[in-house]
């Protein structure tokens, strides 16, 4: 269990009703029996009769997301997402997509990306930003923060793929590595609806340097031991571009798929993040044209 994130184990929701399920501390400790560091972190968490205290878990995860946001900000993630969304949106508009264009952030947490886009993204008045997550406490925090800054963005406690109407495009950051095995193609299968024209999923780019780099940044920048642990595990178990392309092809064959932004220009330096771009075939040409000088960052279409 050295490649499992603590945050995945201390939370449980019924996927149909989204009702929160009690999590037994002893069961989580058993899962981390071979990972002493994770076990120590879980052991220190508050519980009531062996059930992890949901309020304490919520407070902890809100704090962890706040620390994660710091790294996203340092690595300019809002700007990175905006720079890729603009050409996608241009392509959708040029090909007459139904308005408003609904961008749904899957597993948005406290909604940093959408709140940043609402504040600085300049995506246009015909774009609707919707964040979805199973976790009511994170969504509550996202709504509170958006209200404080008067940002035009909506957050829902929901399965992102069951929203009505569905998203015109789906977006995520650091989410897809949580889907293991058959769950990954199933995740992409959820995109394959007529109304959905595109998806962009950002995640850590695996490379020989990624585990060390992730460890260094989490050691230096994070305070919460849970954040430090999960951040490093995320980088270790992130999928390669080839794995993502294959899984997306299996799950959502109606989309063209390509990896975006895997190398730093002509330098052999890997980036921290790469993105899987999925597009309906009729938008490809307009998208590539809208990328302009950045089209060299786009890998081969599958």
């Amino acid at each position, binding site marked *: 269990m050295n490649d499992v994130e603590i945050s995945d184990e201390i939370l449980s929701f019924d996927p149909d009703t989204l009702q929160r399920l009690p999590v037994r501390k002893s069961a989580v400790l058993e899962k981390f029996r071979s990972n002493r560091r994770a076990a120590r972190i879980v052991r220190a968490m508050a519980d009531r009769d062996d059930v992890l205290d949901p309020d304490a878990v919520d*407070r902890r995860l*809100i*704090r962890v*997301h*706040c*620390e994660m*946001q*710091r790294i996203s900000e*340092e*690595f*300019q993630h*809002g*700007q*990175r997402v905006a*720079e890729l969304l603009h050409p996608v949106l241009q392509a959708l508009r040029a090909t007459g997509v139904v308005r408003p264009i609904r961008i749904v952030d899957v597993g948005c947490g*406290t909604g*940093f990306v959408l*709140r*940043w886009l609402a*504040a*600085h993204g300049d995506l246009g008045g015909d774009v609707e930003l919707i964040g979805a997550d199973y976790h009511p406490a994170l969504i509550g*925090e996202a709504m509170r*923060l958006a209200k*404080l*800054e008067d*940002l035009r963005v909506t957050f829902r406690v929901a399965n992102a793929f069951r929203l009505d109407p569905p998203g015109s495009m789906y977006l995520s950051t650091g989410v897809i590595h949580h889907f293991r095995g058959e769950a990954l193609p199933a995740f992409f299968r959820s995109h394959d609806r007529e109304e959905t024209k595109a998806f962009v999923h950002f995640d850590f780019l695996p490379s020989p340097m990624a585990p060390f*780099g992730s460890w*260094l*940044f989490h*050691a*230096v*920048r*994070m*305070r919460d031991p849970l954040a430090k642990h999960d951040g490093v595990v995320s980088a270790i178990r992130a999928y390669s571009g080839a794995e993502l392309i294959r899984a997306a092809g299996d799950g959502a064959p109606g989309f063209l798929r390509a990896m975006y932004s895997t190398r*730093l*220009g002509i330098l052999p330096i890997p*980036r*921290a993040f790469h993105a899987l771009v999925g597009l309906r075939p009729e938008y490809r040409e307009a998208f590539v044209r809208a990328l302009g000088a950045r089209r060299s960052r786009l890998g081969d279409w599958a």
Partner: protein
Amino acid sequence: MTVLIATLYLLATIDATLSGYSAAAGRSALIRKGPHYRKAMLRGFVLGQIAAAVSLSLVVAVMNVVPDRTAFRADLALVWMRMLHVYLPFALTILTAFAFRAIPSVDVRCLTSTLVFGPLAGIRPLVGMAGLVWGILAAPRPEIVAGGSAILLLWLSLEGFLGFSYRPKESV
């Protein structure tokens, strides 16, 4: 001597101000955080002035009790000069990275983090110690070792002090 003190004071003030920023980072999940960071850096600056006053007072106090004041002053100048051999390149690297950070490019800004800000933040305590040891090797007097260690400890603990005020809050 005055130039050495002024240079060390300037570096210490920059370090304290940035410690204020660092202590405040990851504490607010708002998007527009200008006021949050401005306040944090001001707090760092003010605490840095207090720490500088305490440090200088310690130096003056030791200077008043040592029997060979002139020799002590000379040794101190030598130690400070050698400390700057370590601290100045470190500070200049950081300040140069800030200049690059001003370039509005995601890639350039990320590179400043991966190549400079992250690694150097990680080794900052070691650089603090290395500078002191390098300085002390030139004049290993017990007063300088003890005083220098106390002052370094004070500076390295500033960020921790500054972070205390954020701890009760879950997020802002």
